[in-house]
């Protein structure tokens, strides 16, 4: 064996190691994105489950606010079905878009409902409503933070993907840039829980 062969072998070996390193780094980050996405779905599910309870316990106090209550129930219904559609077709941009819109509408409707509470002192004094209110605030925050965490991990992944030397191999290894969640009504969603029952 000539020295040329050994040198070649060493170079190939080094390149292979670098590629393996890149591959593992990207896989780790891509998994974090998937995990963050799963987290968003968990929180949205929580939100959907919480609403019937909330509506049930405030219905008695808010008889003159049927419209707002109906809007919340309706928004929840369409959000649940949008979530099912999105689950059935993962990665379908149209389904994701529909889900984002439905959730945005639900966030808005909830915000209006919570703002109404201010006008009903009896309601604010009710302990179980206060508990539900806290749960709702927390769930809204969790949805927002889950989206934030998702976008953070997407940003880290994409940055890594576009930096040298990862950008040389990423395409070959089958890594594509991930999409950020757009801020559809997310400002609204974050604003909703800020209405406090003081």
């Amino acid at each position, binding site marked *: 064996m000539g020295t040329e062969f050994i040198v070649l072998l060493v170079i190939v070996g080094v390149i292979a190691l670098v590629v393996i390193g890149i591959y593992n780094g990207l896989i780790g980050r891509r998994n974090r994105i998937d995990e963050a996405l799963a987290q968003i779905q968990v929180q949205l599910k929580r939100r959907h489950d919480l609403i019937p309870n909330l509506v049930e316990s405030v219905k008695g106090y808010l008889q003159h606010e049927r419209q707002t209550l109906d809007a919340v129930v309706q928004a929840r219904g369409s959000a649940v079905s949008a979530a099912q559609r999105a689950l059935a077709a993962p990665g379908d941009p149209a389904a994701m878009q529909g889900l984002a819109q439905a959730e945005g509408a639900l966030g808005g409707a909830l915000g209006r409902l919570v703002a109404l509470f201010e006008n009903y002192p009896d309601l604010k004094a009710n302990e179980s409503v206060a*508990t539900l209110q806290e749960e709702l605030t927390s769930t809204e925050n969790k949805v927002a*933070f889950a989206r934030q965490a998702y976008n953070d991990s997407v940003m880290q992944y994409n940055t890594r993907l576009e930096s040298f030397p990862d950008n040389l191999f990423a395409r070959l290894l089958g890594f594509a840039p991930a999409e950020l969640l757009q801020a559809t009504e997310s400002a609204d969603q974050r604003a909703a829980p800020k209405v406090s029952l003081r």
Partner: protein
Amino acid sequence: MDFFEQQERSRSTSRWLVLWYLVAVALTVASYAAVGALLSWRLAGAIAVLVAVCILWVSAYRMWQFREGGHAVADLLGASYVDPERASPAERKLLNVVDEMSIASGVSVPPVYVIRREDAVNALVAGYSPNEAVIVVTAGAVEKLSRDELQGVMGHEFSHILNGDMALNLRLAALLAGLTWVGDQAERLFFASARAQRAAGDEGSPAAFAAVFAAAVAFIGFPGTLAASAIRAAVSRQREFLADAASVQFTRHADSIAGALDSIVALHARTAVLAANAPGLAHMFFAPAVGTWFGFATHPPIDERIRRVHPRFQREDYRVRRHGRRAEVAVLDGAGNIVKNVRMAPAGVVASVGRPTREHLDFSRRLLESLPPRLRQALRSAPEAERVLYALGGFSDRAGDLAGDVRALARQSVLMLAELALPAVKAQPQSQRDRFLTEFASLVERDARVTLNEFVLLTLLRQRLREGAGEPIAARYRKLGEIAEDARTLLSLVARVSGDASGKAFAAGARVLELGWDAPSEGEKLTSASVSASLERLRLLAPFAKPALLRACVETAMADGRLRVAEAELLRAIAATLDCPVPPLVATFQTGVDE
């Protein structure tokens, strides 16, 4: 700096830490041995070995105790685990906030402990690895901080988890426990024997001897204690800034962490944790858990932390929103009786500009009803209304028989009555209005001195009766900075009227404008002519620059938490001149933090 760099940096700090620890141990051993050496070298050797063994043994024992990580720390502090199934509403909120932060930071949810019956506001996180971290929060923090603030504090703790500070902190706590052990025991012995001595009451008892011995041992061990607090401070301080910054990264809401820090100050909350083991863990807490030791503070000053994490944090505004720092403003009836107390913040006074509420309207209606019939009659014709105004200025020779009626009125009603008299005067042609103004001004200057009452009244009349009164003012100055000296003069006058001897009130207003003044104008500059001239120029300020000026005046007047009648009247005259009419209520009492 990403997660891995943080962890690496943390490890290299750990290596330095061990080195410093050995130096400190050597120092402590040497100082004890040196005392022994005064008697014999053999004694010195024995003491050195004994002390070194003690230190190393205690450090090793604490390490062993901490092998369980965070749970051991929670036990040491007497904290109890918060069971999600049986949490009180306040604890539920805490658990929710922790969940939220764990989602935001991507760290798994740690168990939460609360130190019950601990009124201080503080928190810490402990553990060897992110997956077995434990969060400990005082009951005081859960109760006193708002939801957002709690989020900020938890964000801070989560950044400690993520940065790998925790393992280092635990190791530090264990090592330092050994270093300070001898001194601590001596201190404890000293207090115990001093108590026994006081109980026994006679001199020369064994207790007295023990106290002297303990004091001597504690004194000799002092270098060790000092070195321990120096190491603790060196490791801890810089990390607090980093953790504050990371908290914002998680909450995306800088007011949360800055607000939590500010609330500790605003509520005069204690941060020192009373648990016996707290001092040894001081470097792990969110806020200082023990007093400062010879300049070796474990934490940077709170103000400095707020400034670094949120340079544009509006503390005053935040406190008004959060704690409702408000002044009690009384609504008075015509006879000067308090009808109702309204709580109003300085910001609220400015916000009420141009927006009279029911209460204000009620006030003028009530005043009108309470006036004697003859006075009410007088308000309808111009010559009579002028006489009412003369009477209000204290020129009884011009007021005729109305003087007595006006004098009988409460001080608070003066400006209000002036407003009621003005429409009739204003209905005259401009030439008549000017004549009246000139007349009034000459009366004011007649006795060569202008009282505050006269100044306020004249300013108001001039404003209402001048040519083009009520029409929009053409702005000549776009920024307050262009006529800063005039603003200063005005603010100085307000400060003087509010009896501001120390310059604190002036400073309160100056802070709003941020024009870099440190002291009010000199007294001799504050003549009625110079203030009037300044007001005239300030009147030509662009409308959007005026609220800040008015706000500064209100802050100055209310710096002592009270708004007296004289201050309120001056503010109204200023506001009228600036064409930002303030409703007529204000006259008042105190302020305080609502807790």
